[in-house]
């Protein structure tokens, strides 16, 4: 795939007035500033790329413009007049529509019903279903989409088609600004091409696009201007012609390492192989070869949707492997369920502790014993006696073992998740975003726990979106892209190296396919 530079067809005349003007928008949550002094100018027909690492403030800025969050300070002007939104619907009516990664669609309703929800056309007091379908078909055809039946149920559509429905909904609202959050994260290549053409149709009509993506190639393909956010601050806003990939990556990552990581404990050395995958795959990952040894911490990096979580879920039997081989301590296994995986000595710390990690309204003790009780009931007594020691080594601060987990801080909750799994004495520990949503102090102690696990001869496979964490903690770094392992990097790699491999762009090394 060649890079398409200078999308001249959509470059607007310089004399135009901006459709959207953002000045000094700042947003803080509980005194925590997550977005500081953002300024944007968006001309009609322009595509603005919004890039930055996780936590850089992109989503916050989008949500402010979408009317989900009210800015703490700063102004948003639409066509020269200041606007404030108390509700997403107000933003939509004013002309800013947003296509979030989580679609706002009703699966059991048709395409037309979704597009016109809340604004159903009526004739003689009754909803005019025929007109609804007709108008939707026309909207879709205007976007250059054919073959998407407006009376199909949304549930039966592919992700790409659902995204098109969202875009059609935005155009039906006469949106002059459409924000897209990682629109290609779940799309196949030919679908990306269709999205590109839809975006060009929209800009041709003077619609301005705010395009959030991690994929630099897309930024260079589509955008006229790029705004880079880092740690909540606007680092740069430059026309695309003034940027190259290397410079963009440097702008995104080159930060001072404010997090620090404990060194490996003394005597930690890679031992025998604990987990081995050969050509492993299922519906979500494919052709995975990896070796994980005792005493090792291996990081898995990759973009959102690159299959990192799915890899862990495959190993853990959530979505069992259907191809290839999996070996655990020299024994061929293929867990068909989490239960089998736990019995085989695997633990999975999931990325969403509130949804899948903990029973929030149960006590610390019950949560800690949860997995052991379920899978190794005969060990429960012994483990129970050991719980206080386990929790104190993890430095869980709580009033009592009987305290409900939902009352704990995020960091302490995460430590209880760790305790719950370490109580099963696993040989292989899979961690998905182990420090998401925890404070710096708890982060450090979770890192220490990981080091201690390695020293005890456990094998740790850690998925993380935070590149400093991956680089700071891992003995080796595996990078995933599009459901496959894109490669392996040494721990001395830079964030640029990891990002380049994860996005698949690096000037000079690109292979045309």
């Amino acid at each position, binding site marked *: 795939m060649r890079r398409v530079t200078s999308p001249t067809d959509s470059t607007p005349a310089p004399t135009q007035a901006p459709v959207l003007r953002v000045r000094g928008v700042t947003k803080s949550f509980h005194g925590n500033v997550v977005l500081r002094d953002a300024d944007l100018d968006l001309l009609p027909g322009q595509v603005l790329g919004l890039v930055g690492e996780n936590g850089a403030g992109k989503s916050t800025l989008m949500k402010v413009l979408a009317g989900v969050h009210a800015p703490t300070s700063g102004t948003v002007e639409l066509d020269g007049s200041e606007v404030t939104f108390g509700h*997403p619907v107000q933003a939509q009516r004013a002309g800013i529509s947003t296509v979030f990664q989580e679609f706002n669609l009703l699966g*059991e*309703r048709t395409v037309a019903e979704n597009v016109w929800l809340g604004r159903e056309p009526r004739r003689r007091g*009754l909803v005019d*279903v025929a007109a609804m379908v007709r108008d939707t078909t026309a909207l879709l055809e205007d976007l250059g989409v054919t073959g998407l039946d407006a009376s199909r149920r949304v549930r039966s559509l592919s992700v790409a088609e659902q995204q098109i429905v969202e875009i059609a909904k935005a155009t039906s609202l006469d949106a002059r600004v459409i924000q897209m959050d990682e629109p290609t994260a779940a799309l196949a290549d030919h679908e990306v091409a269709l999205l590109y053409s839809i975006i060009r149709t929209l800009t041709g009509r003077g619609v301005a696009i705010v395009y959030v993506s991690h994929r630099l190639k897309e930024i260079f393909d589509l955008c006229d201007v790029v705004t880079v956010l880092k740690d909540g601050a606007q680092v740069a806003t430059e026309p695309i012609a003034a940027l190259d990939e290397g410079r963009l990556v440097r702008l995104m990552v080159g930060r001072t390492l404010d997090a620090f990581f404990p060194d490996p404990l003394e005597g930690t050395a890679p031992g025998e192989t604990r987990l081995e995958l050969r050509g492993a795959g299922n519906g979500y990952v494919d052709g995975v070869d990896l070796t994980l040894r005792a005493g090792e911490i291996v990081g898995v990096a990759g973009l959102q949707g690159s299959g990192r979580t799915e890899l862990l879920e495959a190993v853990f039997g959530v979505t069992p492997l259907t*191809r290839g081989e999996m070996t655990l301590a020299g024994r061929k296994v293929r867990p068909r369920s989490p239960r089998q995986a736990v019995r085989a000595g695997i633990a999975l710390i999931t990325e969403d502790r509130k949804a899948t990690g903990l029973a929030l309204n149960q006590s610390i003790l019950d949560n800690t014993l949860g997995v052991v009780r379920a899978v190794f009931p005969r060990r429960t007594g012994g483990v129970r006696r050991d719980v206080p020691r386990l929790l104190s080594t993890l430095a869980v601060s709580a009033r009592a073992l009987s305290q409900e987990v939902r009352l704990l801080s995020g960091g302490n909750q995460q430590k209880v998740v760790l305790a719950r799994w370490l109580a099963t004495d696993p040989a292989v520990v899979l961690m998905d975003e182990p420090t998401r949503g925890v404070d710096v102090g708890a982060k450090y102690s979770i890192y220490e726990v990981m080091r201690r696990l390695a020293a005890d001869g456990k094998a740790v496979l850690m998925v993380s979106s935070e590149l400093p964490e991956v680089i700071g903690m891992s003995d080796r770094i595996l990078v995933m892209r599009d459901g496959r392992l894109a490669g*392996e990097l040494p721990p001395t790699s830079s964030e640029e190296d990891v990002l380049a*491999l994860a996005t698949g762009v690096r000037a000079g090394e690109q292979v045309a396919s």
Partner: protein
Amino acid sequence: MRSSRITSTTIVYGVLLLVVVAAALITAGQGRNFFSTGNLDNILTATTILGLIAIGQTLVILVGSLDLSVPYVVSLASVVGGGIMAGQAGGIVPALLVTLLLCGVIGAVNGAIVAGLHVHGFIATLGTGLVLSGYLGSTYQGSSGLAAFEFRLLDATRIGPVPLAFLLMLGCAGLAVLVLRRTRLGHHLYAVGGNAEVARMSGLRTAVPVVVAHTTCSVMSGLAGLVLLARLGVGQPTVGSQGGYDLMSIAAVVLGGTLLAGGKGNIAGTLAGVAIFAVLDNAMGVMELNPFLKDVVRGVVIVVAVAVYARRELDRRPARFDRPPAADPGTTKPPGSATPAGTTDKTLEASR
């Protein structure tokens, strides 16, 4: 997984057909005619009461709630209607108005508790149902009130072979279908039941469909109570709970293919669900089956039906690697997977 899937309504009507055929064979085996006017009349009459209630219950379930208070509303309507009517033809209109208004108020309260106080319908209507049950038990001992002769014609009249009350039920069903398919209210009812957050983000007032659905359900239950009053001639404070209309109506709705969680389903399915129960009961009556065994059959039917739907509903993320190309693993390269130098090149594994 494209558009040409068999809808659950098709399945329900298929099952109904099977049940009718089986019932006809069983009845014939007993030396009687299933399709005799008398027997069909029996079935249609049996369908009427549960049908009225189940139509209301369909709306409530579609919007994502439940109504367990229906049996007590049915009983209340029968005694209140009979009390006001007091056997006089002149009392019919006031009795209808007051009774249905009262039922509407009860439904509106149910809806307000569900939408305003965020109490799940299961609990909210369990509560209001208990209140009504206590009121009925403490106020009425035995049957009370009397239907006017003219009002009893509602149950006794036949238009051709079809009972008038059955036509009333069908009329209500038609109206409900129209509301669901062709009014904004109906569309919003599906939207709130499907995903209240999506509905809210689309600018809907999510409380409105909930309150309307509950109000309609109670009014329909009141109507069912009045039909029972016409049938029995007197109001009975236990007629609703004896019918077990709460769970039977929910069962009929779910049997009809409506998702218990809301957002998906239709009236046509519900009517088929009601009809399946009526035909089963009829056939089992002909067989002179032990009444407890009848419940066993009903129970099995409900569980099997819902299990079948659950299998169909199994929903997964779309797979990225649908079916790995079986041919030529050496040359198949995923499109667009640029492989930077210095990394291991992975090719697609052949399907095993």
